[in-house]
């Protein structure tokens, strides 16, 4: 039976792919094609709905394209929506490797963002932009991380299920940050519920080419961060423990992996990454913490991780897809008569469904495969006759 297998030689390229966690180039390609085909299928279904609502599909596609990449500003805004989703996508995907379902990215990012804003208040004297940003980033990561580690601890100590505790902590985070915003570091010059703005040295400068969209060097940082996380998960001892525990808890324990330690540490890292959304929002965009600033990024992050199929690197394209859709939601409402905001959410949902319904895809490809095989066989037997 073994003769049938392709002989696996480790070429340089293969070793590269193995080092980033993809067993082979084909495997990467296969998974990419699956995801994109799924997105295409979902989009097609969405366009069909639009067609029946009275908007030509081509127009919708054009609007989506224009809205995402039509101008420097549009692209900048798309990246602005993508950036938090990269972070929250990672915050969901990483604990998922260890078998934890982090629904608390929303709370973690809220706490992290408040910490970033607070860092601006505390570090008002820091004039070096580099140090200022580093200071804020450390605050945001630590605060989000601690918030994320709490469910990890609760699970380790008491066995509380992380889904329940993270949901609860989302509420607590919302209440707590609102309290601090309104009573502790409230901006006295504003009638709105927002904190004192961070000093100018904390600002992340947007690129000129984005023509006003709040995105700059940060996007490169996030891309590198995602790649590094991927590399680290796949090559480090820590990442190994995560994967082993996520796949077979009993085996991991039997072979000396302390699950409590992995739970706490993976949730800490996840929470920290979610907390870095504070950089995007506070330092990059509004320069202050506003109650309710997040466009549900923590929850969309779950969908981002889902579409990425748990692949850390896959979070990047997946986040971009959701960034485009979020940006497009307003544009579709604006540019068409029939497609309202709700209908564009429907399209979003269909795309997620298309990508996520892995079983559907496998079934379809198996069906097609069998069909083709049978046809080939029919041809063969026909030929021999």
């Amino acid at each position, binding site marked *: 039976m073994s003769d*049938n297998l392709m002989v696996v030689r480790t070429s340089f390229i293969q070793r590269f792919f193995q080092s980033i966690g993809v067993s082979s180039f084909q495997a990467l390609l296969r998974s990419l094609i699956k995801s994109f085909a799924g997105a295409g299928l979902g989009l097609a279904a969405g366009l069909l709905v639009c067609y029946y609502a009275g908007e030509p599909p081509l127009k919708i596609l054009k609007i989506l394209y224009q809205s995402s990449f039509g101008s420097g500003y549009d692209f900048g805004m798309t990246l602005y929506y993508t950036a938090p989703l990269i972070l929250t996508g990672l915050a969901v995907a990483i604990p998922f490797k260890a078998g934890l379902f982090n629904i608390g990215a929303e709370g973690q990012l809220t706490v992290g963002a408040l910490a970033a804003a607070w860092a601006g208040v505390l570090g008002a004297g820091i004039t070096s932009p580099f140090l200022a940003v580093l200071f804020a980033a450390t605050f945001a990561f630590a605060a989000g991380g601690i918030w994320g580690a709490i469910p990890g601890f609760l699970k380790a100590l008491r066995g509380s299920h992380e889904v329940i505790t993270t949901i609860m902590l989302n509420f607590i985070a919302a209440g707590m940050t609102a309290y601090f915003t309104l009573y502790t570091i409230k901006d006295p010059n504003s009638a709105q519920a927002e904190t004192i703005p961070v000093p100018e040295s904390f600002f992340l400068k947007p690129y000129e080419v984005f023509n006003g969209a709040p995105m700059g060097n940060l996007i490169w940082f996030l891309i590198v961060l995602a790649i590094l996380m991927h590399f680290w998960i796949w090559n480090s001892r820590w990442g190994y423990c995560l994967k082993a525990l996520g796949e077979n808890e009993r085996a991991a324990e039997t072979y000396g992996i*302390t699950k409590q330690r992995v739970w706490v540490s993976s949730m800490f890292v996840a929470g920290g990454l979610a907390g870095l959304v504070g950089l995007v929002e506070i330092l990059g965009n509004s320069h202050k913490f506003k109650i309710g600033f997040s466009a549900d990024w923590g929850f969309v992050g779950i969908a981002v991780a889902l579409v990425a199929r748990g692949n850390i690197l896959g979070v990047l394209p997946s986040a971009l897809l959701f960034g485009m859709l979020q940006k497009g939601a307003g544009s579709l409402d604006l540019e068409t008569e029939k497609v309202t905001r709700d209908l564009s959410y429907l399209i979003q949902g269909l795309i997620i469904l298309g990508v996520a319904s892995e079983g559907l895809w496998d079934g379809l490809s198996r069906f097609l495969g069998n069909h083709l095989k049978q046809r080939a066989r029919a041809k063969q037997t026909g030929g021999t006759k």
Partner: protein
Amino acid sequence: MNVIEFKRVAKSFGDVVANRDLSFEVKAGTIHGLIGENGAGKSTAMKVLFGIFPADSGEILIRKKPTRITNPVQAMRLGIGMVHQHFMLAEPETVLDNIILGHEPGWFPGLIFRDKARKELTEISKNYGLAFDKWDVPVSHLSVGEQQRVEIIKLLYQRSDVLILDEPTAVLTPQEVKELFQNLLRLKQEGKTIILISHKLKEVLEFTDYVTVMRRGETVGTKVTNETNEDELAEMMVGRKVSFTYQGIRRILSDSTEIPSILKVKGLSFKGLSESCVDVTLNLRQGEILGIGGVQGNGQSEFLRFLSNPKEYFHKVSGEYTIRDQSVLADSPLDLRKRGVSLVPEDRLAEGLLLQQDMTENFLLGQHEDPRYQSKFPGLLDRDAARARVEQNIKAFDIRPPYPTVWSGRMSGGNQQKLVIARALDSKPEILFVAHPTRGVDVGAIELIHEAIMNERNAGRAIILFSSELEELIDLSDRIAVFYGGRIQAEFGRKEFDPWKIGKTMGGGNKE
């Protein structure tokens, strides 16, 4: 009449071909053995028949009619039933509920007429001479042999005429095995057809009418059992001559009592989740194999878990556990590893393997802190080094398919076990806990695994061997301790080894 016919059936998983060309027939009212080495594709063949996997090509005839079975429900409707190697029972539920699941009697939706079922089951049990009446006991309270009987009654209740049994004797005591086969012969008399997947040639020769041998995904041939013998079948299976027993294999160290004990357990008592240990005292010397026997559920499993992870039991244990005279009661599995302890766990699927990871990843499990597999960059693992070791081990243990990138979940049971054993031996441990090393593994691999364990013994390692197969314990051990009710019921030196005597103590009897 042929009740089942395979015609050139093939099935592969991705690149791995499990069945290449299967052709054989099963006559109605017979016991038909299906034997072959691990990875030969026996289980896959039966799962194809049972509708769990669809066949890629070929034809299956059921009662002379070409039939395409696409799911188990359809198979059951065709009168085909299967007892899997791992029982498919809901343990907290009663026997009755387990049996009627999916076929609840009663005409009103939501109402189950349990009395009717109970009556029917008593009937079945009487008709087939199965001597079973614990209908309202939770399955978890039953012994393994009884659970197996429940599985069989379930098939009878579903009116199956063809019963597939996958390695049914792997988990039974000799007494239970005897009972099982008496039952199977009775079922045959009542007109049922039985397909028996096994690797134990003795059983197959004793109880079947026909036997089909498989090798590497193909059927080698079908024999009338009366007209063949052990040697011929073994040769068909493996493709070469095989030796069967280790009696008389070189034992470099004799039963010397002068060698000091490296591992000691004294007065150990604790209450575990399902089993307990009561006042267990054991000594293990270098260069010996201490066999631990007993019927499943008598404390051995929990004892092994304690031995390999004492820290987990730290707060509820009394007694002593020392290695080289140092107490290890607070040790974690990794601490023990540093003391030179290595483990082949009881259940390789549940405790030993990451099924969706390749051999290299699996090889690193437990060795992820081993300095040999650390990269120069702090925190990173050196997978190249691990892969190189895996490749060496693939050769040494003849693991198939021979590629480190194959998912362990796609390997056959025997090859998985070889991988687990290779991993356990990789760190050159001084103390080795080996549990059920050949469960669900067949002749060719058994030979190799036994040889590996013997070699370790002869190299001076101290080994505790847990096994439910008495034959294996007798073949390999220098001493055997039998667990019953959480206690050590009896201990036998090599000269005292006698299957019936040991079997008696396994059932709670006294040694003399």
